[in-house]
Structure formats: C-alpha cells, structure tokens
C-alpha cells in the first residue's frame, strides 16, 4: 500500500471516530479531485460545489463504513462523489451544460501523488480495454457511468429494445472483466 493511500485510509479511520481535523485533512487532499468529478458529471460549477459539500457531509457520516481491506480510499471517495453527483443530476432531470471543457480546468496536483500514479496506470489499462469493446457496448457503458442513466433510458436514447440494450451492456461488462483480469 502506498504512503499516500495509507495516510488517506488512516485519516478516514479518524473521521469515523469523529475527528474534525481528520475530515479537514481528507478534504485538503481530495477536494480538487472530487470537485473535478462532480463538475464533469454535473457540468456547471455551482451544482458541482453543492454536490461537493454533500459529498463531505456523507464522508463525515459514512466514514465508518469505509473498509481499508476492501477498497482503496481514493476510489471510495471518488465513487461517493460520482454517485452524489449522479443523484443530483437525476433529481434535476438531466444537465444543461456540456461539461468537458470546464472539468479539464480543474486539477489535483498535490494530493496523493503516488496513489495517482498507481491510478493512471489503471486508467491506461481500462481505456485500452474499453477501446477494444464494440462501440455500442463502450458507448453504453461510458454513458451510464458519466450520466447515470438506466438501462431503460439507454434503450430509449438508442431506439432499441430494452433486452437488446441489456445484452450489449452485459456483453461489454463481461468483455471488460475478461480484459482487465478478474
């Protein structure tokens, strides 16, 4: 386990015991990254800021459920940010902005540098695996991931029967798992 990962996991453990200074530490090391995720999904700054605030409220209340044996801390946090942003997106009925440009303006240079290197290797591998999928499969998986749309919504958007969409996505997921190694 890298030093950065261990520090973050330790800090989450202290958040679980009610340490506000540990929450501040987690925030300091992860807020830029998590903000970038919220912004990428929600597409505008003000919604992303609101979502980010909700994420850290969740971190405060749910840190006890983080299990360092089971998940990496940065993935746990990033997943929470993604899910929080998607919940907001769903409750607002979809987004109105194209987010990509603005999301690229956000960065995270300080935090957890070695953890990020670890992740960027994973990132190259995942990209390669997604790229080798049938484009209908990869489009559906990416859309579901970034826009939080369900099977039914994906099927409607593509104008295909629900069973067809499920089949595309499931085949894509199985191929992905195979490619990444179990």
């Amino acid at each position, binding site marked *: 386990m890298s030093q950065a990962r261990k520090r973050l996991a330790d800090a989450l453990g202290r958040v679980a015991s009610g340490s506000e200074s540990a*929450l*501040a*530490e987690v*925030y*300091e090391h992860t*807020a*830029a990254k998590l*903000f*970038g*995720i919220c912004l*990428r999904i929600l597409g505008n*700054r003000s919604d992303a*800021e*609101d979502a*980010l*605030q909700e994420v*850290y*409220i969740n971190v405060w209340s749910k840190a006890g459920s983080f299990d360092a044996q*089971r*998940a*990496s801390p*940065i*993935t*746990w946090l*990033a*997943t929470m*940010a*993604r899910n929080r942003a*998607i919940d907001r997106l769903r409750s607002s009925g979809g987004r109105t902005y194209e987010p*990509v440009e603005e*999301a*690229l*303006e*956000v*960065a*995270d240079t300080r935090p957890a540098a070695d953890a*990020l290197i670890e*992740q*960027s290797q*994973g*990132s190259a*591998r*995942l990209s390669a695996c997604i790229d080798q999928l049938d484009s209908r499969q990869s489009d559906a998986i*990416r859309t*579901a*991931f*970034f826009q*939080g749309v*369900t*099977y*039914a919504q*994906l099927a409607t958007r593509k104008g295909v029967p629900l*069973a067809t969409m499920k*089949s595309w996505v*499931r*085949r894509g*997921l*199985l191929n992905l*798992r195979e490619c*990444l190694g179990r």
Partner: protein
Amino acid sequence: MSDEAELGGDDLLAAELALGLLEGEELGEARRREVEDASFARAVDRWNERFAPMLDAILRNSRARTCGIASRSGCRITTRT
C-alpha cells in the same frame, strides 16, 4: 442471453449496480443484497475499482488549481485569471 447469465450472474448484477443501470424493484433488491451479502458487496467494490480510472482520466492533463482550505461550508474554487 443464457450465456451471459451463466457467465455473469451475481457479478454482473454487481456491475449493474455500480454503474447505476438498475431501477425500481431490481435496484431495491440489489441494494438490499449489497447490505446483507458481504461477498456481493465485495463484488460491487471490485467493479467500483475497475471503473474508477474513468474518473481519474477526466482529470488528467488538467491545470493546477487550489481548492481553499478545509471547511465544512464547501470548496471555494479560485478562478484563474
């Protein structure tokens, strides 16, 4: 689609939950499993780990930016001038 069911089963359901594809009864059932069934919960975690690099990828090649100091009142993002 029998081959998918055989190959995937619970692990596919875990992926579908992680991606957010489910709704209604299926979603309720999958969330209940995640709470009650530790091996299913681990499968969901594994999928989250598999997908996480997509989140990372969107932030790469981006510029440095500070995010203020820790505060429960939210992140103050400075605007580049």
